[in-house]
């Protein structure tokens, strides 16, 4: 027998999960599709923005100049810059929906697939405490999703900026709100990947876990909206902002209202006006109270709440992983 100094380490488990993830073709396909989607939708979005000359934001646009009341003072240049950057990342919301879908399904497959194929026996044999194997898969899928989100986001922004610049738009890449939104987009893709792993650990059967993950991320907000309007339940309406996808939109969306407020501190209040941002909606109720139906844009709180979703799902997943027979 050879003298053996090897033992199972967390670093070893991380490396093992990394090898497992990237030794499957599915992984490469799904991540590649996600990146292509980022770039494709960004290109379409930038092309559909048209040229600066014909943009509704351009005060010299003949259509706007000819409009009634055109003599009124046009928007300050700083505010126009904010609106232009909002236009720059218009692709983010639709892409995020689909990217979350693909990346979370990949997370589910990575975890539930082990139970389905029998691989889990090998995994747990090498890591009999199990929860360290779960955590390493969670971290690896999170990091891989973040990397995919980062590549997609940066490429999409570059393509979008390139096309729009070519069409005469003045893009301001130094805008901190832009980078905050892009960071949120990357973060939400990471969330989706990690969330998929946890749903896979909780349900273990792909046929059940995939619809559950998609249901929570994509369908639940619609159901909540329908139910609350149907049954007139205000409390249910108030839960909507806390669903992962709505938190994702808040976390990742470009904070137009906030950026406008910062660009024009002496101007009228943009935040909370209910119309300045499509993301923020403060309803004035009959009794004079205000009801926030969406969290404010780019709020760091949204990021923390997404993390809370992960921590809670992780706690349950650990319990099931530890307790149930493999």
């Amino acid at each position, binding site marked *: *027998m050879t003298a053996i100094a090897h033992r199972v380490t967390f670093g070893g488990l991380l490396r093992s999960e990394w*090898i497992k993830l990237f*030794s499957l073709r599915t992984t490469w396909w799904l991540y590649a599709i996600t990146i292509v989607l980022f770039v494709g939708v960004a290109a379409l979005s930038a092309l559909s923005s048209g040229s600066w000359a014909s943009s509704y934001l351009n005060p010299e646009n003949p259509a706007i100049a000819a409009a009634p009341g055109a003599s009124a003072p046009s928007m300050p240049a700083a505010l126009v810059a904010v609106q232009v950057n909002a236009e720059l990342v218009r692709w983010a919301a639709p892409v995020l929906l689909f990217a979350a879908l693909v990346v979370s399904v990949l997370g589910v497959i990575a975890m539930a697939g082990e139970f389905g194929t029998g691989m889990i026996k*090998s995994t747990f*044999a*090498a890591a009999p405490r199990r929860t360290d194997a779960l955590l390493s898969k969670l971290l690896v899928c999170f990091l891989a999703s973040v990397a995919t989100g980062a590549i997609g986001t940066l490429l999409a922004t570059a393509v979008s900026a390139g096309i729009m610049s070519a069409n005469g738009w003045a893009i301001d890449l130094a805008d901190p709100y832009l980078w905050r939104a892009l960071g949120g987009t990357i973060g939400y893709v990471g969330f989706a990947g990690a969330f998929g792993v946890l749903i896979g650990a909780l349900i273990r059967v792909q046929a059940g876990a995939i619809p559950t993950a998609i249901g929570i991320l994509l369908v639940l907000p619609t159901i909540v909206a329908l139910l609350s309007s149907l049954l007139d339940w205000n409390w249910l309406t108030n839960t909507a902002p806390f669903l992962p996808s709505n938190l994702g939109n808040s976390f990742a969306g470009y904070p137009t209202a906030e950026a406008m407020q910062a660009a024009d501190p002496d101007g009228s209040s943009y935040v909370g006006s209910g119309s300045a941002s499509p993301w923020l909606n403060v309803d004035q109720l009959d009794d004079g109270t205000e009801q926030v139906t969406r969290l404010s844009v780019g709020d760091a709180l949204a990021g923390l709440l997404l993390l809370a979703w992960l921590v809670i799902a992780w706690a349950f997943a650990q319990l099931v992983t530890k307790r149930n027979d493999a």
Partner: protein
Amino acid sequence: MIEATALTKRYGSKTAVDGISFTIRPGVVTGFLGPNGAGKSTTMRMIVGLHRPTSGAVTIDGRSYAQLRSPLTEVGILLDARAYHPGRSAREHLRALAATHGLGRKRVDEVIGLAGLESVARKRAGGFSLGMGQRLGIAAALLGDPHTLILDEPVNGLDPEGVIWVRNLARSLAAEGRTVFLSSHLMSEMAQTADHVIVLGRGRVIADAPIAEFTAQASGTAVRVRSPHAPALADSLRRGGMGVTEQPDGALLVTGTTAEAIGDFAAQHRVPLHELTPVKSSLEEAYLELTKDEVEYHSGAMPTDEPAATEGMPA
């Protein structure tokens, strides 16, 4: 050394393993026999912590599997011919397992060579035959050069060359002082490989004896003896250096001697005998006899009069 104490596993109202205790010693190959559904796989899964015992405990070298710091170098496991992802190549599968313990590519290539998988190591394992899958599983079990090997039906699906390979592997690892525990439902296969056999039926241990006892019986050198003074006779026969096992019906099965010698011995000691029968049955028959009341799933009656007379294959 694997030690089970009152190990029990229930799934709902069904008891798969019913309070079994046994010890598997290092340095010998221990076979684990029993019909389908007897609880062999469940027992093996409990040994390595994949299934949690309902009650009782099982330890490997004094510790439960979950407490092992370096499970792959302490215990090598083959529990399922398909314990890998079909989309991953054999090599990547082994690399992923090796990485958990910081074992290098060199060791991965070594076990690929050992298992004869060089030509297919880069192919996706989903396309493997059952036998290739078994080879991959055995390669994975050997990865950490473990002190203990637990192999569930290792020869299932292997070609004759593979069967001999597993047999020699098990014997040489045991000869190095390791603990080797293999299951099978074929007595003839065990006769070639194991030194000691534990037979399980309906979740209970129904025999735990050296293989010699089984083979002696099969080759006709066992003698069935019934006597009103069976316990006393058993003692004196044992003192005379003969192997004696008590049968469930109270008879004695004596090995290492002949019917004539036992008859003379009994006459000298004035012990009345009610039966003195040289037992002539194949190993497989002996095993079937042993487990016939313990079979969970009986086959329907077949229109045949041929008794399965499988003598152990020549080694």
